[in-house]
């Protein structure tokens, strides 16, 4: 079964590389646990390759759909789901001990609640998309001076974090591919009755540089 899965991964990798040789650069390997088993790596690759292909063209999408192994294969169904769930739980428990945040306990508890709520509503759901969660944790590691955000899940079970004060909003959607889409709503400092509205997409590592001109630190930093 694993041999078949590997073969399928190889086929998908080839199609991605043929489409553009940036594939490997775009998703550099970065395991939170370097000693993780190959199976986990394979599963992560499987998650990433189709998403990239999906984003390209409708034609590619059709290829992908027809190329995807059927769900009746137990390797692609319950094993994959369980593995992702375990990874989400492992990441959440790591937050409690490894992140240097004052509110790490509260944050971890909030994520556990979201995970449970998502599973309660749809037992077949991922609970929280593991790569979105990784992206969020990476952001918090890079920016440990931020207040605790409100956290919710998008319809795709990605992390969506919001920092708000009375009249300003900074919200970030953590995508599974290390990108973020962000929104800023704040009063126009020269015309307080009017609102500045900014939205964009960037990589997580430079998000705070990107939004520096909008002084979001005024309401999101501790």
């Amino acid at each position, binding site marked *: 079964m694993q041999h078949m899965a590997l073969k399928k991964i190889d086929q998908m990798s080839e199609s991605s590389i043929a489409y553009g040789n940036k594939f490997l650069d775009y998703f550099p390997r970065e395991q939170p646990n370097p000693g993780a088993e190959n199976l986990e790596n394979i599963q992560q690759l499987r998650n990433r390759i189709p998403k990239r292909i999906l984003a390209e063209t409708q034609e590619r999408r059709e290829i992908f759909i027809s190329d995807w192994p059927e769900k009746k294969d137990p390797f692609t169904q319950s094993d994959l789901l369980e593995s992702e769930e375990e990874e989400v739980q492992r990441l959440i428990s790591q937050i409690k001990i490894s992140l240097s945040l004052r509110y790490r306990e509260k944050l971890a508890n909030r994520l556990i609640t979201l995970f449970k*709520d998502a599973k*309660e509503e749809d037992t077949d759901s991922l609970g929280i998309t593991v790569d979105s969660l990784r992206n969020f944790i990476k952001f918090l590691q890079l920016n440990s001076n931020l207040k605790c955000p*409100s956290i919710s899940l998008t*319809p795709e079970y990605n992390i969506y974090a*919001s920092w708000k004060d009375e009249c300003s909003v900074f919200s970030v959607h953590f995508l599974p591919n290390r990108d973020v889409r962000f929104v800023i709503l704040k009063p126009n400092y020269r015309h307080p009755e009017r609102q500045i509205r900014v939205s964009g997409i960037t990589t997580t590592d430079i998000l705070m540089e990107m939004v520096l001109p909008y002084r979001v630190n005024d309401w999101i930093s501790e």
Partner: protein
Amino acid sequence: MKGDKIPNYDHVARYCKPITVEDGQIQATAFMVRMGEESLSVNWLEFLNCSSRENEIAELRKIYSRKFNKVGTSAKIAVLNIGEVCEKVLTKSPDRRKLEVLHDPIENDPSHKNDPSHSGIYNLKQDDELIAELILELVRETYSARI
């Protein structure tokens, strides 16, 4: 009737799942569509033909308990005025998005999950975080989705 445009002065209610609510506060994620979803599901309140908002909400709770496997304890109902939503999104979204709110009744459902007041907010896209935040600013009334 299916496809009818709902008048601007009427109201719709959005069921906000527990994953879109924190400490009783509805988040913008409640107004996001999932990939492949044609519209944001809502219920047309005036169509319910109740005598008060309280009765409309009570009716909605019945609909939810019939439609969904489970209505979470923290799930909420957000009430929106259609005219306000369309006007704000048209004038404040970067691409001057023209939303449409259309009646989309669910009838003759084989699993007995009929929902005659079901409607949809159309022309939303999956990456519309800013529009979701704009809509969130217009939520004036919230209720628990569960009794």
